[in-house]
Each structure stands twice: as C-alpha cells, then as structure tokens.
C-alpha cells in the first residue's frame, strides 16, 4: 500500500487547509536530539514555526491534554500539525496519535508519523487511527516540502 517512502491518507484535505497568510505552527516530537534539530531546521526551511518536544507526555502538555487538566477550554497552544517519531520510550508515537485523536480539542489536528522502519502493519495501524501520513526516516527536505504544501493547500 505504501509506494515509495511515505503513505498518505486518502481522506479530504480540508483539515489541512489554513487561512491564507498564516504561518503553520508545527509540533515536532522525537526523543533523539539530532533528529529534533534536523526536523526543526527542515520545517523552518519550509516557513513553519516549530516547537519541539522530546517525548509524548511533554507533547500532550503543550497541546493542553495533560492528564491532570480535565477541562474543555483547550488551554494548550494551537498547532496546525503534529509530526512525531514512532519509536519513543514510554509513550510511543502511536499512543500519542491515539490520545490526540481521542480528544475533542485536538482530533482535527493532522498527525504525521515518522519511523526508520517501514513495517506494513505499523503503517496500517497508524493510518487506521487517523494518521495523515507515514514518513520514513531519515527525513529529507522533499518529504517536508510535500507535507507543508499539503498543509498550506498548495495547488500544483
């Protein structure tokens, strides 16, 4: 099902579209320091504002989904995209994806999963839980450009 190095959701792109002139704010989650630096630069090069988190719990905190905050006011920061590593100690990217999709505040936020291993069952389970895309590591500029283009609803 995955051709090349990435799989895309076939659902409509309406949840990707941003207001014209807005700079996308991306939350990048990865436990590896080098990968965080790399993804941050790749995203900045594609004109995104970037916040990085080194694990799932920190990411949830940033999004206002920390388990001790049981309110619907969404005190978390607004992000237009979450891009997360799959293999992380503690909470995996898959578990983070599920939590994001289960919350009313964040379920519309597109989530992209990155992994060094292109395992079909892994890709499928992420896509089934609502991941927008599954990208193989190491990330390249062309991967990120494709992503941000979809986010900004570029035509052509």
């Amino acid at each position: 099902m995955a051709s090349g190095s990435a799989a895309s959701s076939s659902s409509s792109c309406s949840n990707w579209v941003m207001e014209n002139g807005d700079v996308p704010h991306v939350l990048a989650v990865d436990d590896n320091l080098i990968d965080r630096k790399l993804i941050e630069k790749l995203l900045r090069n594609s004109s995104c504002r970037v916040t990085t988190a080194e694990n799932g719990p920190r990411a949830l905190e940033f999004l206002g989904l920390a388990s001790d905050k049981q309110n619907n006011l969404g005190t978390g920061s607004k992000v237009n995209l979450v891009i997360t590593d799959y293999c992380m100690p503690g909470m995996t990217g898959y578990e983070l994806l599920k939590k994001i999709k289960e919350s009313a505040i964040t379920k519309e936020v597109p989530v992209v999963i990155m992994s060094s291993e292109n395992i079909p069952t892994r890709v499928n389970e992420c896509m089934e839980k609502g991941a927008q895309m599954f990208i193989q590591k190491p990330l390249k500029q062309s991967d990120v450009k494709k992503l941000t283009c979809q986010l900004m609803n570029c035509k052509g």
Partner: protein
Amino acid sequence: MEVGQMQRQWVDYTKSLFLEGFLDSQFLQLQQLQDENNPDFVVEVVSLFFEDSERLLNDLTNSLDQQGIDYKKADAYVHQLKGSSSSIGAQRVKNCCIAFRNFCEQQNIDGCIRCLEQVKQEYCLVKNKLETLFGLERQIVAAGGSIPTMELSF
C-alpha cells in the same frame, strides 16, 4: 595554498568519503540545509552527533560488561545510535548498528562484543574524517573563500 586549490582539495576529500562509504546522501541533505542564516549547521549537528554517540558507546560498553546483560537496554542504545548515524549520513556506523541489533535480538554476547568493537572503530574513523573535512572548511573560509556545493554525480 590558494583558495582554489583548497576548494579542490575539499571536493576530492568529500568525494572520497562518499566513495569509501563513510557518508551517504543524507549528509548532502545536511549540507543543503546550511545557509547564511545557519552557516554552521553541519558542524553543529555533527558535534551533537559526536557527543551523543560517545555517551551511547559508553553506556553500551557498560551494559555489556554486566553479569546479567539486559539485551533490551543494549538494543535500545544501539537503536538510538542507528537513528542518529542514519540522520547525519554516517553510513558505515549505521550499518554496524544494524548487525549489532540482530545480535542483541539473538542475545548473542560474542556477536555483541564484536559489533561493539566494530562500531567504535567505525565511529572513530568517521569522526576523524569529518574533523579533517571541517578543518579544510575553516581554512577555506579563513582564506576568504566559500565552501563548494556538493552534487552526488560521481
């Protein structure tokens, strides 16, 4: 040595690193990310890689030096090292890690010890090569030149 000569030396040296398999195309991705806003991006990321790798290699050495080896923990360290080396294009280190993970999975202590030695060797080699490369870059910049852009066309 004048700038043109230094630049040619840099190109030849870089080519050799690719031809000998020390680096792969991911390193070119890093170089392409370097610009006027981030003129030291490659050195910064590679320096992080050096620090991170040395810590991981220490942790690995300790973890394999135990009475009851925790292979899952060792595998987690190797996974990290595989990830970082892959992200910066350190191909030979990455390939060592792939073999290493197999031995961790098999809980094969001899295989693990051998791989540890190999990965340490490959790490030292690529570290020396990259430090030499960065030295050439500093010389070029000091002489008022700019670092050529590398195309993988050879």
